[in-house]
């Protein structure tokens, strides 16, 4: 589970190609090689040594630093970077990227900003993968891995990947759209070395193509097949055969069209699985009456390596006890599509002593959260999603649940909590009990809602979080908030990189505090808050250090944004119009601005104006 995972994955440790070359270089460097390589220049030797050393550098931040040392280091670093991460696909052009980095094996690209997930951006805004696919086809024929997030990928792009990259091994698409099962069919049929196909929360159109049958016959190299987001029927028999001929398969996440009976058959085939997405977790409608139910408990018991369990898309809670045998080993459990009660959760969670990641629906209520707190002492990440995402006065979880978690799960690092009510006291308690918090995202669904007990704004709670959680890098605020909350953030949130604000603040001062106070700020997304042009100006010193700024339904004017655009030539300032806005309105509906080496993009749709 990797929603907004900021950490870079370590690149494939495929140093063969590289170290051979390095060995050759050393060999020739010592004078015993070909005459033309017989180099007497000490620089050359140093560069070879540097190349050898830099291969071991995996963190992209370290690599960025290394590339700044001097020209030689810049050159060598560029030669040795095998995994290329680009956080905003419009910050740099494919041509520029492929010109600098010539030996890339893995590409990680991110497109649309996060608020696009919530329908705040009209469709067809951009983030097309196509130009990248074409550029890489020319520059990196040995490309093995592509990881995309919030990009628009077409069926043709999938065909390109499979046809033009002979050694292609891994495709991960997170929150992407624009393709369908026919594209998948072409991709899997041509991609013979495929190890990983992970489709995560992506929109896949149903072209009625049986893509599962398109995997080539014979033993497959598949290690991971994740398609739980694909909302179409699949050919189960073909899937069964595929799993049977994939001895290396470790991760399998099924979609909701796979019944529990079919799940059973797959589990029997693949007891070596470490990550399992169970599909619907309910019987198919066609199950005959009086058919003997398979021994689900035994199937789970046979999966001794299972550490990550998810799915439960249409759960019939009666079947839950089947997972008891694996609970003790689970480090990750995702019940966020399972509408279960506290009583249904308790027998499970009480066995999950090793649990580190837990995603769940608020249907379990505060009582369920108390049960989690009682057992899961090792919990690092908790996400509580709403069954009914509307603004109401009542909700099943509240400050009680948060307090309990803070007291029971002291190692908590990351929390996302949707609720209808929250008190400052509970948030303050969490700030003190969980000092390791890196990510704190609290969503009080009622807009402008104060502390129900004291009637106060939520300023003090969030203030305590930034004050006490010294490692905090990501913060999302909600509830009734005055400028004071932002003053706290500016003063104490020195490591904050991502900040999400909605329906908060009183005046421009709030945004000023943040822009002036948070030197590490990279991503700032704001909606429906009373911040205007003056506030925008206060960030001029910092915008080149940021990946992007999003402000929608605030108080910005066109000429205010124009000023910024004029002052900062390497910033792309996009004004995005919603359907009912006129082009020449001075009021800005949505501002999305980001640094870029390329200037205004050429693929902007009509509703985007680049200032």
């Amino acid at each position, binding site marked *: 589970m990797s929603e907004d995972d900021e950490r870079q994955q370590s690149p494939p440790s495929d140093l063969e190609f590289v170290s051979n070359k390095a060995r050759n270089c050393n060999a020739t460097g010592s004078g015993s090689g070909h005459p033309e390589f017989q180099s007497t220049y000490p620089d050359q030797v140093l560069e070879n040594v540097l190349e050898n050393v830099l291969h071991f550098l995996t963190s992209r931040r370290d690599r960025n630093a290394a590339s700044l040392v001097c020209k030689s280091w810049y050159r060598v670093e560029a030669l040795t970077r095998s995994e290329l991460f680009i956080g905003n696909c419009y910050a740099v052009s494919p041509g520029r990227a492929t010109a600098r980095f010539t030996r890339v094996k893995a590409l990680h690209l991110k497109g649309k900003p996060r608020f696009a997930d*919530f329908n705040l951006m009209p469709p067809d805004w951009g983030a097309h993968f*196509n130009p990248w696919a074409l550029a890489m086809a020319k520059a990196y024929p040995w490309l093995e891995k592509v990881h995309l997030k919030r990009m628009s990928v077409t069926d043709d792009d999938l065909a390109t990947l499979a046809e033009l990259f002979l050694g292609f091994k891994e495709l991960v698409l997170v929150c992407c759209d624009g393709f369908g099962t026919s594209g998948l069919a072409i991709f899997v049929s041509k991609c013979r070395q495929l190890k990983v196909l992970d489709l995560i929360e992506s929109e896949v159109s*149903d072209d009625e193509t049986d893509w599962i049958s398109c995997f080539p016959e014979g033993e497959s190299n598949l290690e991971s097949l994740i398609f739980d987001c694909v909302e179409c029927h699949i050919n189960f028999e073909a899937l069964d055969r595929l799993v049977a001929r994939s001895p290396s398969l470790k991760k399998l996440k099924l979609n909701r069209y796979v019944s529990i009976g079919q799940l059973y058959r797959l589990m029997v085939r693949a007891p070596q699985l470490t990550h399992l997405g169970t599909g619907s977790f309910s019987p198919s409608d066609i199950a005959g009456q009086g058919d003997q139910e398979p021994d689900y408990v035994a199937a789970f018991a046979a999966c001794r390596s299972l550490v990550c369990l998810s799915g439960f898309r249409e759960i019939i809670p009666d079947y839950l006890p089947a997972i008891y045998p694996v609970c003790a080993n689970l480090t990750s459990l995702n019940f966020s599509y399972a509408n279960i009660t506290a009583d249904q959760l308790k027998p499970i969670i009480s066995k999950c002593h090793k649990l580190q990641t837990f995603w769940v629906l608020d249907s379990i209520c505060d009582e369920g959260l108390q049960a989690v707190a009682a057992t899961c002492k090792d919990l690092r990440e908790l996400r509580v999603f709403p069954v009914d995402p509307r603004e109401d006065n009542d909700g099943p979880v509240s400050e009680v649940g948060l307090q309990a978690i803070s007291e029971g799960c002291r190692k908590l690092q990351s929390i996302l909590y949707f609720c209808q009510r929250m008190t400052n006291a509970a948030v303050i308690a969490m700030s003190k009990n969980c000092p390791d918090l890196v990510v704190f995202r609290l969503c009080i669904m009622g807009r402008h809602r104060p502390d129900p007990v004291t009637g106060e704004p939520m300023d003090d709670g969030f203030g305590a979080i930034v004050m006490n959680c010294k490692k905090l890098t990501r913060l999302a605020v909600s509830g009734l908030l005055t400028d004071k909350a932002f003053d706290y953030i500016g003063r104490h949130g020195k490591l904050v990189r991502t900040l999400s604000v909605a329906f908060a603040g009183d005046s421009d001062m709030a945004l000023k505090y943040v822009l002036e106070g948070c030197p590490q700020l990279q991503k700032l997304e704001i909606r429906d808050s009373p911040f205007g042009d003056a506030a925008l100006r206060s960030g001029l010193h910092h915008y080149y250090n940021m990946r992007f700024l999003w402000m929608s339904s605030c108080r910005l004017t066109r000429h205010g944004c124009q000023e910024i655009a004029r002052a900062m030539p390497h910033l792309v300032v996009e004004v995005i119009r919603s359907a009912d806005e006129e082009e020449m309105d001075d009021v800005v509906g949505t501002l999305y601005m980001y640094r870029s080496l390329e200037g205004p993009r050429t693929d902007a749709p009509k509703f985007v104006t680049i200032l």
Partner: protein
Amino acid sequence: MEVGRKMANMLGTDHDLNFKETELCLGLPGGIAVVAAGNETESSSSPKTNGKRGFSETVDLKLNLQSKESTMDLNKNLDDNGSKEKSGSAKDPAKPPAKAQVVGWPPVRSYRKNIMANQKNSSEESGNSGAALVKVSMDGAPYLRKVDLKMYKSYQELSDALAKMFSSFTMGNYGPQGMIDFMNESKLMDLLNSSDYVPSYEDKDGDWMLVGDVPWQMFVDSCKRLRIMKGSEAIGLAPRAMEKCKSRA
């Protein structure tokens, strides 16, 4: 489809008027044979006696142009209707107070919202009145698509969605003539709205009709599949608003 092709074959690509031929041809493929067999319901001169196919008086073989116009007119009308509908609902006074639906709030991904909504729906109803899924093919496109007609409220919405769907195809190895450049959505929209490409659909009776013929809801209920075809092949299809509406009324 057979009808359309026969039309094209018989008439070639020029659009000369030829009433007689067109009258004959616009029967079902079996229609001509039926005439030959002396089926008394069939009349070669009066298309109206054949309940399913026939010209309405206003349509002749300037068909391609006229049908374009009439289709475009229909589109315009529908657009007007669409906007009227929109403004109508905006004026609707019955909307509740301040905490009405806010776009994108709470910040739950639409993906997740849809799943939860689906779960609710399937537990609430046993038999799903469900989606009106139809296949969409476009001449020259390498892939089929499927659309759920219930997702759209008007022909314009459908047309936009189709343009978006098919604009992802590149020309690939296609030659310049006869094939279109799918890459550019606005170009595609122009094409769809021009004479070169015409959206048609197969209805419950198995007839192929021009899209835009009948009121939207009737279309959704009767459409079984969609084909976006080249204009020259669409000659055989005629706007049939009057015919079908009457026969269904």
